[in-house]
């Protein structure tokens, strides 16, 4: 009798843990995007403008979003510094490297508000021509589910409309029967130029 009880308890606990790790609604990212569209587009657009003037990568490496890592590139060097987001040294450094300090500080603040952990631009090539896409990773509260490995919602912004299959999965441009995987992840449609994946890492 005791053995049966133990087995039942273990089975119930296992079901609980499994359900905890899989309770995210499947359309959550699309819903999240629509709810926060203005803020997300604002961040992407501000970042694009900053990057056009000077390359920059921003990441938050702590859970509380207090510390920001800034990667600044010149022609010959990449400089990586970590600051407290409220530190005066941050603005001084941005100024020293010739960034638009007001725009970058606004970007950092906006990122903190929607729990955006990382923003970067990736160069890729289609028919040997250089294209760019912007990566933006977000860690919404709803993703803080116990035992869930998938914690980040990574959005990609393309400059051209992309191809998707009937299930909304991103396709390779040249071979439309093949899924376009980035870092081994399948991406899903939000709109013609924006798609997402859910991942266990933000970059």
């Amino acid at each position, binding site marked *: 009798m005791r053995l049966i009880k133990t087995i039942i308890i273990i089975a119930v606990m296992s079901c609980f843990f499994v359900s905890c790790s899989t309770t995210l609604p499947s359309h959550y990212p699309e819903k999240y995007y629509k709810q926060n569209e203005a803020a997300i587009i604002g961040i992407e657009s501000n970042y694009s403008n900053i990057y056009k003037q000077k390359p920059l990568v921003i*990441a938050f*490496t*702590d*859970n509380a979003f207090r510390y920001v*890592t800034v990667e600044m*590139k010149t022609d*010959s*060097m*990449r*400089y*990586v*510094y*970590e600051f407290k987001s409220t530190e005066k040294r941050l603005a001084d450094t941005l100024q020293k490297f010739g960034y638009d300090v007001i725009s970058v500080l606004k970007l950092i603040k906006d990122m903190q508000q929607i729990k955006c*952990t990382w923003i970067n631009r*990736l*160069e*890729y*090539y289609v028919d*040997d021509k250089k294209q760019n896409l912007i990566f933006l990773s977000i*860690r919404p509260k709803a993703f803080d589910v116990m035992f869930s490995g998938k*914690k*980040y919602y990574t959005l990609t912004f393309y400059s051209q409309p992309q191809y998707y299959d009937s299930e909304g999965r991103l396709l*390779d441009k040249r071979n439309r029967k093949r899924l*376009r*995987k*980035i*870092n*081994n992840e399948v991406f899903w449609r939000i709109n013609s130029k924006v798609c997402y994946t859910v991942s*266990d*890492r*933000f*970059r």
Partner: protein
Amino acid sequence: MMNFLVKYFLVFFLCIAFSSVSNAQKSVSLNPQQISALAYLDSVGKVDSSIYWPNIKPKLFIQNIRKNIISPTFIYAGSNTNFCGYAALSYSCISTYPLRYTKFIIELYKNGKADFRKVHFNPSDKVKQATGQLKFKGELDINHADQMWYMSLADNFKGYINWLSLTYGPGKENVLWPSTNFAKFNRMLRRICDYKVDAVGSDLIRPIFSDITAFLNQKLAENHQVFLFLNNAILHKSNHNKVKFRFPTHYVVLFSITESAGMTNLTYWDYGFKTLLQLPTETFKDILFGVTWCNKKAEE
């Protein structure tokens, strides 16, 4: 009118003078080995498509080799791949032996197999088929010679870490298949670059130094090429998990190190760039698992 003409000619001559100085600098910056390698590459001229490497585009291939000879600093391991060990080795190897590299890579392209010193390369058909098709790796997408070089190195050199993934399959460039443990990295340096290699550290246990900054500065001052084996999960965080794997995954080429007020400033090469990184000294000690220093032999 006269004044205007004088000014005009002055500006004109200054432009010519600056442009000739800049051209001179460009040519001066190439060493004799680089000039020989470029001359060899020019003698090869245009190459046809290779039956062995069907997805390599000849134009991109030659363009990539030329760029590597002129500017090895821009050698790029690709975004989210596990090629960093090969890239660090290539940075050193191509800087030191550009002619040998050029002859080797052309032969490998034309014949599907080639020898680099005593190392025989004859990559598998799967590797040959996939080379030229790696996508979303940044500039590596169009660097077809680099794709061929990294994939061939990964296919040829195996360490215990590769035992779980010995054969190539699509997407495996991002996971264990090309991974490089510390002993494998040092073995590659010895066999490919023919350096006298010394190392301290391991894949799991961190080395103990009384003063790491002084130690590394001494090696640099003795004109060694110094490589560091680091835990990238802390150096380049990609999640917010409190529990981090305590093992190293990343290789960089060290240029300088200074320490002040508990902070370490590292200047190193990786991912096609020189990087200046500032981090707490305690963190640096935590992430450093291996140091390799080599005596570069005289250029050939």
